[in-house]
């Protein structure tokens, strides 16, 4: 079946198209070259005047796994309130799998990635992601607090052995990338350490966070995993943590590194309130170093829930819980989880400045290929607030108007008012489509060239960018129309994106012994079989290119 999308303004940065009018052709779920005047499309959509982009891709959104379910349990109030609305599933911080897929698709997203899959919880995360309809998914594996890796490092293992370990773990857990969360810190918290400096030896394995960070960044490079090490850095939320953030950038010494929810890591400790924006310093460092990418983790005002593997940071924040209840878990000798409900208040100085710091980062970091639109769902805000965020980036007047409603001391603590940049549609398409696909190694997604999967979103060009991005006219997934005028019109199942880096399997006998001695689970049972992912019909493998970066 041949479908023609005729006459839209196409924003396809990966292929150098920035709003030029053109046709797209779709056959069997993929975009094909113009078949020429002789071809008779089975279906034609007249898109004159409409804006056409690839389906959007969220590189960092907590959509599945143990902590998400704990967050749902803890946020029973929001579900109870929602049950009283006619369709009570809009804008929740803890949507069900079904609502997650629907809300993403309704906003023109066709993929979202769970950025914190613990090794021991990976099977659960995959079972849950398979129940998210409509969109593609995948998970980043959390390493860097696993006792096995720390023991390996402490034993003086070389780069090759560390890479073999990471390679095994990615294959076994069917992951797409490697995530490090407060490397060493979660492990230290299990020994009652509430802080750990970057150059301080951890309590049991006597390894420094810096060593863990560089070892993982090196392993990612050595294995040729497309996505750089995805780092949730040190001292999340602590005033003055910018020093550790800049130090992390320096520590990897030119290796590729992705700093996630960097808004939470761009805080100074200056000024009368000992809390200041360090966005300009972070942006300057990112602008100067092409090996660094970031996603923002923008906060938006309202009730949400924070869920993180970073028990050390979450325990420090537990006193701020709203409502006053929270969950911490130490997990299976590989990480932890902390779930703390939180309400960001626009009249609170700290929250207002967090909001401004996020926007400063968006506007000061110049290259839209290296900065990504996230709220760290649900930590900064539910992902359903993306359209509002896009409006803030594209519309300076709106931004200033919103700023005027916030805490009165805000203007003297942020340069936001002086920033005149407004994102263009092309930059939005880069940041939410082309760049996420490229940085994850998804070669046939995020663009509209021949051979790409036909994940396509069509918008009406409205001056109110929030309204525009909230409700696309048409969304196609694998060439099938799934959303029309904001309504889901067809259900289908997404795919699971993974990498399978090559590694030396001799590491497995060492690991198998450790599993037998400690984990109460055999290594062969830990490994997730292909047929366990979406019943065996869901894996999409992406190539690793060792040494290519």
């Amino acid at each position: 079946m041949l479908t023609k999308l005729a006459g839209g303004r196409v924003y396809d940065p990966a292929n150098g198209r920035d709003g030029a009018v053109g046709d797209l052709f779709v056959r069997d779920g993929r975009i094909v070259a113009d078949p020429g005047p002789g071809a008779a499309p089975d279906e034609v959509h007249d898109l004159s005047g409409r804006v056409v982009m690839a389906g959007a891709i969220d590189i960092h959104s907590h959509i599945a796994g143990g902590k998400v379910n704990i967050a749902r349990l803890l946020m029973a109030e929001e579900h109870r309130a929602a049950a009283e609305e006619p369709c009570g599933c809009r804008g929740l911080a803890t949507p069900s799998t079904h609502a997650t897929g629907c809300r993403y698709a309704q906003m023109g997203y066709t993929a979202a990635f769970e950025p914190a899959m613990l090794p021991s919880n990976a099977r659960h995360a995959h079972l849950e992601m398979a129940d998210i309809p409509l969109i593609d998914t995948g998970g980043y594996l959390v390493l860097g607090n696993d006792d096995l890796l720390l023991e390996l490092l402490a034993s003086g293992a070389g780069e090759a052995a560390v890479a073999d370990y990471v390679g095994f773990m990615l294959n076994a857990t069917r992951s797409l990338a490697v995530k490090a969360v407060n490397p060493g810190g979660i492990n230290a918290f299990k020994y009652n350490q509430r802080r750990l400096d970057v150059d301080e030896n951890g309590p049991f394995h006597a390894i420094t966070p810096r060593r863990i960070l560089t070892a993982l960044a090196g392993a990612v490079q050595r294995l040729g995993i497309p996505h750089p090490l995805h780092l949730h850095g040190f001292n999340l939320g602590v005033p003055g943590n910018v020093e550790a953030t800049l130090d992390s950038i320096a520590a990897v010494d030119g290796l590729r590194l992705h700093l996630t929810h960097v808004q939470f890591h761009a805080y100074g400790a200056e000024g009368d309130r000992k809390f200041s924006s360090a966005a300009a310093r972070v942006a300057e460092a990112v602008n100067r170093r092409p090996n660094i990418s970031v996603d923002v983790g923008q906060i938006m005002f309202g009730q949400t829930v924070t869920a993180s593997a970073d028990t050390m940071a979450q325990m420090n924040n537990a006193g701020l819980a709203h409502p006053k209840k929270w969950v911490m878990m130490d997990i299976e000798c590989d990480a932890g989880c902390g779930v703390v409900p939180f309400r960001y208040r626009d009249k609170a100085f700290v929250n207002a400045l967090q909001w401004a710091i996020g926007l400063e980062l968006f506007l000061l970091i110049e290259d839209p290929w290296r900065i990504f639109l996230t709220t760290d769902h649900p930590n900064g805000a539910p992902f359903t607030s993306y359209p509002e965020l896009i409006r803030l980036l594209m519309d300076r007047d709106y931004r200033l108007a919103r700023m005027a409603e916030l805490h009165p001391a805000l203007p003297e603590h942020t340069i936001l008012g002086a920033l005149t940049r407004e994102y263009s549609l092309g930059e939005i398409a880069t940041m939410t489509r082309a760049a996420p696909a490229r940085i994850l190694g998804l070669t046939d997604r995020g663009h509209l060239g021949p051979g790409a999967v036909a994940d396509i979103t069509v918008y009406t060009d409205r001056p109110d960018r929030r309204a525009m991005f909230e409700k696309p006219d048409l969304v196609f997934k694998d060439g099938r129309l799934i959303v029309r005028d904001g309504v889901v019109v067809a259900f289908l199942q997404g795919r699971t994106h993974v990498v399978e880096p090559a590694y030396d399997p001799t590491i497995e006998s060492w690991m198998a012994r450790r599993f037998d001695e400690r984990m109460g689970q055999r290594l062969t049972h830990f490994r997730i079989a292909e047929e366990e992912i979406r019943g065996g019909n869901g894996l999409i493998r992406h190539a690793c290119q060792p040494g290519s970066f």
Partner: protein
Amino acid sequence: MCPFCGLGCDDLTIEEEPPSTLTVRSTDCPVAREGYSRTTAAEPPRVAGIPVPLEEAVEAAAAVLAAAQTPLVAGLGTDVDGARAALALAERLGAVVDHALSDGLYRNLAVLQRTGWIATTLAELRNRCDLLLVAGPDPAALHPRLFERWVAPAPALQTPPSREVVFLCGEPLDSTRAALSGLSVTVLAGDSARVGDAAASLAAALADPSRASGTASIAAGDIAALAERLAKARYAVVAWAAAAFDGTHADLTVERLVQLVRDINRHTRCAGLPLAGHDNVVGVNQVCTWRFGVPLRTSLAGGAPLHDPHRFAWARYAAVADAVIWVSAFRPEVPAFPAEQTVIALAPPGTAFVDEPAVFIPVGTPGIDHSAHVFRSDTVVALRARGLIDRGLPDGASVLKAIAAALPEEAPAC
């Protein structure tokens, strides 16, 4: 991989003697032995007691359910796929959903939802815990190999690798004593119905052991000594099996234990280990929570799921339900329902009924007849149990999907 009690033992040796007799050789765990011994030969489905082909039984079940006004989809002793299918069917029907064994789970979840908690998992217990406090009746009665597999081995990630075990308001079973023979074990037997009071006394004594008061038939000196040990432990774990607690408000006992754990954490590390998990109750609750945003004991009757742990507990709702579909794939047991109630039972062959159900469809057991995903007791680890034999029984998920498919067509909503 044993799917029955939620400990996830994957070191079993099981022998098959044709036709289809399984014997566990490697352990005398009574739960594993009994679970694997139930391999009665397949039998045909029955409608009103009369053997019929599967398709006919499915049609009959669908007809009953299509006519029901207040259906209940419960039991839910099934694997992840079975839970998905059962919950999808319940959504189609606008039914109430619950698991047969959710009483113990809800004592824990009630506290999680009210106050939150600090918890841990089995491998953390095994490798880091230097002081295990077992609160209330010995959980080994429900999870027989808990001590052998997760407590007896020395903690690999603690220096020195020492561990002691204290039983509070409960006495260890003989098998537990045997498993812990190499460890320091203290028993403060006390009054098992008052374990919550003992926890409160311990919490009060943490700050100043000299002000400890005796409670639950435990002397003040013992409370003081234990409080001191908890405060000095490097990684204490407080474990309990809420299903074994007595009384109608046992969640308050859990709440006091959770509060004790939280208080100890002000100074050192401590974590709770709420044990539950027979018949995959933990896994089914996980699936329900991710699919609906709310846990079991939920009504799907009015559009958005409505969770109410009191109203929608199956034993209570059964009194008003006009049709019940009961899934019990792990054990040949189905509770007695009022004689006038229309019951559709999915259970292993050989299940004995007080009253013959309207429809009985024999199904295979997860981890015996088919591969299955189940969750471990600590809620974190999902396990895959492979099928061992083929008795020619359908799995619960496919029967439930077939029933849903036989219902009148209906468009899915977003």
